[in-house]
């Protein structure tokens, strides 16, 4: 068993940043094992993506291509990759931790008696893999000891994608054998529930609210603070799930990704799913009653206290400062 293979994911016709981050994670493993990093692109037509990947890969680029792989299905992707893995016996398979990867890689790994180590944030010598537990309040160190390949997926933003290079990896095609009757699910076209009218991505300042606000009736406090700051309002998932704010204001893996100059998180504990959507902000301020809340791990300034006292005081202080 040898080789490190990074499975690249296409996003809206391009290779997304998170796939380059997975390549960066592959390079960490390459450094430890001395093996080269190879890439896999999957689809019905992969020539263009393979060419894009080949510029940044020192090993080989494999195009796993089949007409039935044009649209993602767990059956199609698992079957295609399973055949490739049986043929090539890689030591490591590295994936970006996307919704798509979460949907099929655990099943694929199980076919080899392996278990995906998912949502990895760093890789240490061994290798051992670090991932977050208890909604980011703990980190755990994992080790894989099975006979099969090691499957790893990496969290968005955890590894730094390398700059574009001018490498020229050798590209080859792998033809999987797939029959349409083996694909049991029929996916429809992607759609949006409502037209997006708020573009949080371009906001300079954002006040984001989480579970700590307790009741929809208390949102007025947050609105006043946002107005005093000239900021857009955003929220963590539970607030939008409850229908207290529209889903277009949700920040995190299932909502928008933002990087404003100022991100003021109020009553947000900082689950991983939220942090991935905002940790690129230039300045993060957190107000939370729990001093151990994970939001403080990414915050530049923190206020440990009752938001129902801190927020009105802050609104007043901002109003006074603006006069």
């Amino acid at each position, binding site marked *: 068993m040898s080789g490190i293979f990074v499975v690249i994911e296409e996003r809206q016709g391009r290779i997304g940043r998170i796939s380059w981050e997975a390549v960066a994670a592959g390079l960490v493993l390459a450094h430890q094992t001395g093996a080269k990093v190879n890439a896999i692109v999957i689809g019905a037509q992969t020539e263009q993506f393979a060419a894009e990947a080949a510029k940044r890969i020192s090993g080989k680029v494999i195009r796993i291509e089949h007409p039935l792989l044009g649209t993602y299905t767990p059956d199609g992707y698992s079957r295609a990759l399973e055949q490739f893995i049986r043929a090539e016996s890689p030591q490591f398979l590295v994936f970006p931790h996307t919704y798509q990867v979460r949907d099929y890689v655990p099943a694929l790994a199980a076919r080899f008696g392996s278990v995906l180590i998912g949502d990895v944030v760093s890789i240490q010598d061994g290798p051992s893999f670090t991932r977050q537990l208890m909604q980011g309040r703990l980190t755990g160190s994992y080790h894989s000891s099975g006979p099969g390949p090691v499957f790893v997926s990496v969290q968005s933003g955890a590894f730094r994608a390398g700059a574009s290079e001018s490498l020229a990896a050798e590209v080859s095609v792998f033809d999987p054998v797939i029959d349409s009757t083996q694909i049991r699910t029929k996916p429809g076209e992607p759609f949006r*529930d409502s037209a997006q009218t708020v573009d949080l991505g371009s906001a300079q300042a954002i006040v984001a609210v989480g579970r700590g606000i307790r009741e929809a009736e208390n949102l007025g406090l947050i609105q006043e603070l946002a107005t005093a700051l000239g900021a857009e309002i955003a929220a963590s998932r539970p607030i939008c799930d409850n229908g207290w704010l529209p889903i277009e204001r949700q920040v995190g893996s299932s909502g928008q990704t933002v990087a404003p100059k100022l991100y003021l998180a109020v009553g947000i504990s900082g689950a991983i799913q939220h942090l991935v959507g905002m940790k690129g902000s230039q300045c993060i301020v957190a107000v939370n009653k729990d001093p*151990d809340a994970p939001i403080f791990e990414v915050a530049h300034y923190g206020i440990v206290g009752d938001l129902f006292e801190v927020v009105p005081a802050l609104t007043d202080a901002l109003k006074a*400062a603006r006069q």
Partner: protein
Amino acid sequence: MKIIVAVKQVPERDAPVRVAASRQWIEEADLQFSMNESDAYALEEALQLKEKVGGEVVVISAGPERVAITIREALAKGADRAIHVECDDIANRDALGVARLLAEAVRPENPDLVLTGLQSDDLGYGQTGVIMAELLSLPHASLILHVEKADSGITVKRELEEGWFQNIDLPTPAVLMIQSGGTKLRYATLMGIKRAKMKELRKVNAVDLGIENAPVVTLESISLPQRQVSTQILQGTAKETAATLVEKLKFEVRVL
């Protein structure tokens, strides 16, 4: 429609987290436990489906004795009966190990649908349902917000990233991982709690199911996370911290 819902009991969201002396898990002695959030949504989706198309909802949970409390809660909300997979070392089993336990306990039931939550709030592997589907040779879909009975199977609404969705048609039997927030959760009624005490709760264990604990991925140690940035905690009363923060925003961050 016979629907099995796999639920997990997890430490309560705001429970104090203390690393145990073994450094392999947390101190459980003074923890409060509750039903994992996305599993509660899976149960709700199952109960609503049953109300629409009829059938039976069977809840299954793997874990130590305390898990029976969460099972009773599911029965009180309307599940018809339950299976408790007794297992004292669940935190030391990997995702494949737990999925094996649940899959073998589910297999003789021959359900039309198996529902689980998307991810547990404690270990957060988010894999149990997908692996169960693999072990049971059933089609699956994850990140599901809504399930609708169709002529030949089901149609589900799946969440994609960045605010996108898609509908997927699946034949039954199938396994679905349910995302939080697709519907409103119900509370158990007094009558429901009373009835739950009379409902069937069958126990099986790993030995009955013929499954050893042989993890391929092991959690070697846990620790408190390292801070990614050095956080300045502002001290004082609400008024004082507010004033300090405004100063910082004005002169250091320069956003005012």
